[in-house]
Structures are given as C-alpha cells and as structure tokens.
C-alpha cells in the first residue's frame, strides 16, 4: 500500500513550504480532474497531495484597478462562468475554459490545472496565450511573473522550478474594439480532447486590425504563440488575403504527430480552417465592443 498524505493548507506560504519539503513527491490538487485519473491509472503515485482550494488567492476572481482580471489558478470553469463581467470582457478565454470536459468536470476543473497538466491539447491555453495572460508563480524563492506562452516546455512538462506553485492568471484591460474567441476541432460535440485548438484575440479600429495574438494548440509539443499569423492580420481589414496568409502561418507553425486523435495532414489543414473561423468570431465581437 502506498502511503499518501492529504494536506489542505490555508495559506500559500504553507502550501509552498509543504510542496518544497516533499521534494517532488507531492502533487498539487486543484480540481483534481486530471490528478485523480492519473492516480487511478497508476500514472501518478504522489506521496503528498496538497489541496490548494482553501487558499483565497487561488480561488478568487478579481477585477484589477486598470480594468484587467486576475483569476486564481484553482478557480473552476463553472465559477468563472458565473462571474458577472469576465465573460463579457474575455468571451474567448471563458469559452475555452468552459470547453474542458463535461458539466461535471466544469464544476472542478481549473485553468491552472489545465495549464500545469501540460497537455499540448489543453483547451484553455491557446486562448490564454492569445489573450496575453501573465502568470503569477510563487516558490521558495518568492514570487515571479511569466507570460503564459513561456510556461509549457514539452508534453507534460512546464517551467515551474521545484517547489513553485502557479498562483494566478492576469489578463490585461481591453482597449475599445477588442474581441477574442477560441475554437477547437473535436469529432464529437463534447467530451473530447482537442485535435486542433485556435485562440485569437484582436483589436479593430475603423475596421482595421491594429493588434492581434494567435495561440495554437494540439499541433506541436506545446501550445504555441503564432506571431506570424498575428503579423499577417495586423494592418489589414481581415480580408480574404490576410486570412489566408494567417492560416498559412498557422499551418507552417504546426509540428503535429499522428495519434489516436488525428493525423498530421488533418491537423495541419484544420489549423488553417479554424484560424479563419476564429478570427471571424473575434472580429465580430470586436466590432460590438
């Protein structure tokens, strides 16, 4: 029998202390929708489980003074969906987080867990990358911040140092005329892992795209920020040529694998299709904002 300890600290300092002390034998429990599955399958055999949901900073949603948002890493998708303003400011980020699993999973799963689990197909990550989210991370050596796209370093691997815990996501304030969107391709309508996922955030002024970010998931070892796709959009009226150039940039950014969820050829092609569709939704939202 494997001995496991369950800890539910009230403060981040306690959590970081316990996590660092366990020297790699501990796992952080947020929603648990990945961790409990890994434990059942024998993939994870933690010596200590540190439940971070009793720590206020990790479970709160805050509107910052500058008009941005700070989302605790352990906030569940269902709680975020009930926030009165978040979904109107960042609809794409919210729809991406709300695509993680079933209603039941939504009651537990968090953007922090989704990111830390390290799947290249994590739904929330391309939208967070497009949104320009900045992470707050706390460890034995204190706090630091990191752009979200720099967090994953490979499938199942991230840039957290030993003992560090992901605390929150900070999303910037939105200029007028901004919109974001996330689309994924799955074979069913629900309950699948993304075969391709595309997040787009952009700003329009008089119909001209003045800023854009594109996040691309499930087509490479990590979610990618596709700068070339954004470049292709900025300065255009999102005409067909611009969209095709951005789609081509997405296709070029793909380094996918053949697996049970999709083929290389299919993923590359679909990344371009989804880019165009996602831009259309984001632009439509920007036009209303």
């Amino acid at each position, binding site marked *: *029998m494997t001995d496991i300890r369950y800890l539910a600290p009230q403060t981040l300092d306690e959590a970081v202390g316990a996590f660092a002390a366990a020297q790699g034998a501990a796992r952080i429990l947020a929603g648990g929708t990945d961790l409990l599955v890994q434990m059942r399958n024998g993939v994870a055999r933690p010596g200590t489980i540190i439940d971070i949901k009793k720590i206020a900073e990790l479970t709160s949603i805050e509107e910052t003074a500058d008009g941005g948002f700070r989302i605790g890493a352990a906030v569940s998708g269902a709680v975020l969906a009930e926030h009165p303003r978040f979904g109107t400011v960042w609809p794409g980020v919210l729809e991406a987080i709300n695509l993680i699993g079933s209603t039941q999973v939504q009651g537990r799963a968090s953007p922090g867990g989704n990111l830390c689990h390290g799947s290249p197909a994590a739904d929330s990550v391309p939208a967070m990358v497009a949104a320009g989210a900045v992470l707050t991370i706390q460890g034995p050596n204190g706090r630091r911040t990191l752009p979200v796209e720099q967090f994953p370093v490979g499938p199942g691997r991230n840039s957290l140092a030993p003992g560090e815990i992901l605390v929150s996501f900070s999303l910037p304030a939105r200029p007028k005329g901004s919109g974001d969107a996330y689309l994924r391709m799955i*074979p069913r*309508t*629900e309950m*699948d892992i993304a075969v391709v996922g595309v997040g787009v955030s952009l700003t329009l002024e008089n119909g001209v795209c003045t800023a854009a970010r594109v996040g691309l998931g499930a087509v490479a070892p990590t979610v990618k920020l596709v700068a070339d796709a954004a470049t292709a959009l900025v300065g255009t009226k999102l005409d067909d040529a611009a969209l095709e150039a951005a789609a081509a940039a997405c296709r070029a950014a793909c380094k996918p694998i053949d697996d049970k969820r999709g083929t290389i050829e*299919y993923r590359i092609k679909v990344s371009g299709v989804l880019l165009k569709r996602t831009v259309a939704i984001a632009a439509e939202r920007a036009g209303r904002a």
Partner: protein
Amino acid sequence: MNAIDNKWIGQRTIRPDGVDKVTGRAGYAADNTMPGMIWGHVLRSPHAHAVIRGINTAKAEALPGVKAVVTAQDIVNFPLDKSVMLGIQDMRWMCRNVMAREKALFHGQPVAAVAAISEEIAAAACALIEVDYEVLPHVIEIEDAIKPDAPILHDFLKFEGKSSNIAGTMVNKVGDIEAGFAQADLVIERSYDTRPVHQGYIEPHACTVSCTADGKVTIWSSSQGQFMVRAMTSLLTGIPQSNIRAIPAEIGGGFGAKTIIYLEPVAVMLSKKSGRPVKMVMSRDEVFRATGPAPGMKATVKIGMKKDGTIVAGHGVFYLQAGGLPGSPLRGPVGCSFAPYNIANVLSEGFDVVSNRPKVAAYRAPGAPLGAFAVETVIDELCEKLGLDPLEVRIKNHARPGDKAVYGATFGSITFVETTEAMLNHPHYKAPLDKAPAPHIRRGRGVASGFWYNAGGESSAQVNITEDGNVTVTTGHPDVGGSRASTANVTAELLGIDHSRISVLIGDTASIGFSNLTGGSRVTFASAMVVTQSTEKVIGQLKERAARIWKIDPEAVDWDNGEARPAGANAGKFPPLTLKELAAKANEMGGPIGAGIQLNTVGADPGFATHIVDVEVDTQLGIVRVIRYTACQDAGRSLHPSYVEGQIQGGVVQGIGWALSEEFLYDKTGKMDNASFLDYRMPVCSDLPMIEAVALEIPNPKHPQGVRGVGEAGILPGLAAIANAVHDAVGKRFSSLPLSPPKVLAVLDA
C-alpha cells in the same frame, strides 16, 4: 386480441422496477456485498501474443492479506481437438477466454487472479505473480492475419490443408450468380472495411460469489441469462448445476456482450480456495481490453440490377474478426445481408479470422449491421446510377410471405414491404432539405434497410395468486430494458385487474424453470407467450373454484373484468366472485392458486427495419452530424409502446456511433490505444437530434398478442443509411467505417 379493446396492453404504464431505478436502490452486480467478503483481481497479459511457459504465484501467495490465487490450472481444461458446445459457445474457447492456458492471445487476456482482503492488496499481489512469457509476433488486422506469412495463433487450425488464421467458413447459396449477373443491366462491386466496436454498456462486468464448505455456490451477477451463468460456470469449474444458484442482479446494459461470462468461474474458484465470499468488479479499462467487442470486417459485395430495379444477383464475401479465439458471428452478414430481398441468385460467404484482439461477443444483431452496411450501400449506388428511388426499389425487391430466404427458411408473415412503404410515405422522406445552407456545409439524405432473424426459444413463467387476491409473476430472463413492464401489462389485461396489483420478478435459477438468454429479440415475444399461457391456466383454476362454490359446471363460468361470472344457463343466478374473494377461499376450495409454464417458444417472425437519415457535413473539417432520423419497425403489437420506441432509438444511436465515431485503435505493440470512454467515442447527448421511432403494429399471427421482437433490427440500417446520406450531401462514396473526420476530409480532398 383487438387493440382498441385493450385496457393495459399498449398502455405506457410505469415499470414495476422503476422506482428502485430512479432512487438508486436497484441492486446491480457491483452493488452487492456479503459478510466476510474479500476482493478478487485479475492479472492480465501485457503481451498481444505470447507462449506462457510458466507461472510462479509464490510471492503473491506470501503477501499478507492474500487468501487465494487462481490460474488456468484451476479452470476445467477443454482440449483443443474436441468441441464442447453450450448454445453457440464452444467451451474450448470460453475456458481460455476466462483464463489463458497455453498462450496469451491478446493484450488484456486473464492469466491469473488473486483474492485478498482489499482491492489494493489483490492488485498488489497480481503484480507479484511471475509469468514466464515467450513473446511472439502478433497480428491485429484481418488483411495481415490472412497473409501467407502471418503469425499463426493456433497451429491446430487448418484452412485448405495448411495452418491458418481462418478458423471457419460459412456459405449460403441460392441459384447461380454468374447466370444472374449476366441478366443485369448494371453490376456494381465494392469493397468495405470496418473497425471493431464495443457494446459500450455503462455497467462493467461484476459478480459476488459465495462457495461454501458443503460445495454449494451462490453467484450474484449481472448477465443476460442467469441460466447461462449457471451452465457455463458449471462447465468451467466442474461443479454440478444443482449446486450452483445464479441470482440475476439488475443488469446495467449488455447488448449481447453479457451472453457470456468472464469473471464468475474465476470468482468461484477463488471463493472455493479461500473459503470466503469473493467480489470481482472490472474497471472500464478491463472492459475495453478484454470483453466484447463486435468484430471488424473486410468485405466485397457485388450486386446486379436490371433497369427496372429488379435485383438479379448478389455476391457477398465477408471476413470477420473473431479475436484471439475463434467464433465470429458469420451468420450475421452471411445470412442477413441479402435476406430483405427476394433474389434468385445469391452467394454469401463468410470467413472467421483470428487475430490478437479480445474474443468477440454478441452485439445487437451480431454481425448483421456489417453486412447491411455493404449490401445497402451497393444498392444505393445502383439506384443512383439507374435513376431509381431507393425505397421503391427496396419495396419492389422485398421478400414477401412464402418467399424462401437465402439462409434456408421460408418466410412467414413478414412485413418488409409494409415497413418500407411506411418510410416511403413518411413526411420525412418528402421533406425539403436545404442541401447547401452555408458555403462549407452540405446536407444529404440517405435510406437503408436491414434484417435480423429474431428468435423464440426456451422460457418459463410462474403466475401466483397471493392470499389477498393480488398477483406475482416470475419469469426467468433478465430485464434489460423494460420487459417486466410488458409482462405486467399482459397479465393485467388477461386477468382484468389493475396493473398496480401485479408484481413482476426475475427469478433465480433455483426459483424458476429454465429460460434462455435475454437476446435475439426474444424476451418480449417469448415471455408474453409463457406469461399468457400461465395466466390462462390460473384463470381456468379461478373459474373452476367459482364453479365449485356455485356448484355448477366450470364450463359455465366466464372470467371477465377481474371476476368470475356465471354464464350460459346460469347467467345472473349468482353474484360475481372477484379475484380477492376467490383468493380468500382458495385454501378451503382446493388449495393455492397458481400455474407455471415452461415452453420452447416458436413463431418468432424476423426483425426488419428501414431508416431515413439526414446528415450535415462540414466539408472543411470532415465532420458529419446527424440532424434528423426516422426509424421504422413492425412491432406486431407494442405491449408497452415506450419500451418499443426505446429499443428502436437505442439501436439507432448505437448505429450512429458505429457509423461515425466508434472504433478500436491499436498501438504497434498490439495494445488497445483508446481503452476509455474519453477516446472510445460513443455518441453523447449533444451529438444527436431526437430519434423518431415509427412502430407499426401488424400482428404476428403466431403470437397470442401479435408480438414481433424489436430489440435488434434498429441497429441494422444506420451504417449504410448514414454513408448513403453523406454521399447525397457531398457526392462521394464511403466504404470504410467509422466516417471519422480525417477519413472524410481525405476523401473530400482526393
């Protein structure tokens, strides 16, 4: 029996087991516990193909908390050279499927099992068992398994004089196909391939077994037949049937796969060795790796048609995957594919191919959906190219009563024509369809039909009148989808009493006579027959009691609306005697009132279905969605219409999953790569529209209420109907299932 006169038959009554099932109180297999119970766990082969040179269980046995270890040595060995059949199951294969013997034939095959005081210790002990494997090259796909240089799974299997993975063949033939094709104006030949699919019941296999010192065994398990559990466990453990009592738990779905057993003999031997009750529950991972599935298929179908739509010849060659042990359902595609039609010249050939996959189990009209997929898409293409309406062509060619089927039977009162005519005249078939609602969206409509044999077989029922004048009915087949509700309706109708006064139970093997499996679309047909005859005997007894009380001839008593009434010359002479009054006097007037019937039921007419489906194709992503579905079957008489519709709707959606998203995927080592509900994609609620079930009621003259079995046929047409609809939408033919987005997009871009 005239439908309009029925008070209970045809009513949507509340099922007798309903409240337990909506409150969480119904007892399924994994819900049972016994005093002193311990837990069993199975060690499974990590190799797709390996010789088992030896098994050392010493370390496992030494682990504290371990109470028993079982290997193939503890299961009865049926030698490979002699077939021992139980129904359609050969015990040579079953004993090896339950516990690998000479060889591991698929990843996940049981190799040993442990019982211990906790699940964790049992699992830990399994990890301590040392199995000496000689790993062999494996083969997964049919095309690889039948190559001359393929790894051979079973040396003793010979085909055309040589060791082969072809384990068996089956041929149905009428007329002369060459002569038939010569008459055709158009001949189309197409090849098909499909992947294995799992039955996908939500309840994993589970059992609790108690083997006591006097050699008596009690099994509480979920299956499609407690008598099958008893018989197969008896054969595989050597314990006589009289010492085994199999108690049917509520069953959480089976769809054919629970017509065989996996855990029960192992649990019996663990219980026997440990002297403790043993509980075993499979994980979903184990269910996917080691139970079911339905076979995948490689097939070639050739059909010839005249310009007027007459089908003149058909040739089908169907290779089915058996899994690691022989026994794929060849009679499905071989016998059923051409059976909807009266075709003068047919040759239908089947080959049973072993490969290193789990042994297949029955799944809703076993094998038949595969054959229907091939034949019904070729017919669609013939109709398209000859400019004919596909439903009218089917009606023109449908078999009619008295026609002889390719599998040998002469059809009785079949209603294929009426069923397809109902779809031809259905508003769905004529409804306009916007075929291009958006630049990258195309819509299309498809139709197809399908045939299944249906079955009668052995059934038993006991109807007893309680001392207070109410009724208990016991039958011998598990209720998978509302059969108790139908039984209650029939009994209430015949006795003329309120439905609520009848309690319907499923008996265990010691409390009711032999009853065959819940399968083959037989239970409503057969149980209504034995319940009717039992109830009629009870009514005879009630009339006899009344006659005795009134001192008149029993022939002069009528049973009407729940009471005995003097009839004929005595009419009106005595006040009627109610069931309650007669029950109160039962003991003084001849003893308890009750009757049982045990029958081998006959007269089941085939199952047949015709479907219409509309699909929507995203031509940029290759995604196919079903947007409208109408399915028609003749139920003969719907004893409980809701559960007839439910059978049709459930079958349709399993067909949609088979067509669009379900498949077994393997990695290079021969290990299933998608053994979870996350990656084995069964349709979820948001994938589907409402499913319109059209149940015709043209009575089967050989059944007291007119029943025709409905359980299976609903799964048959969907695979072809959807492929035909996708063709209608995008103009391309698809011959490989599932129609997964990458596959569809590849064809669209080709």
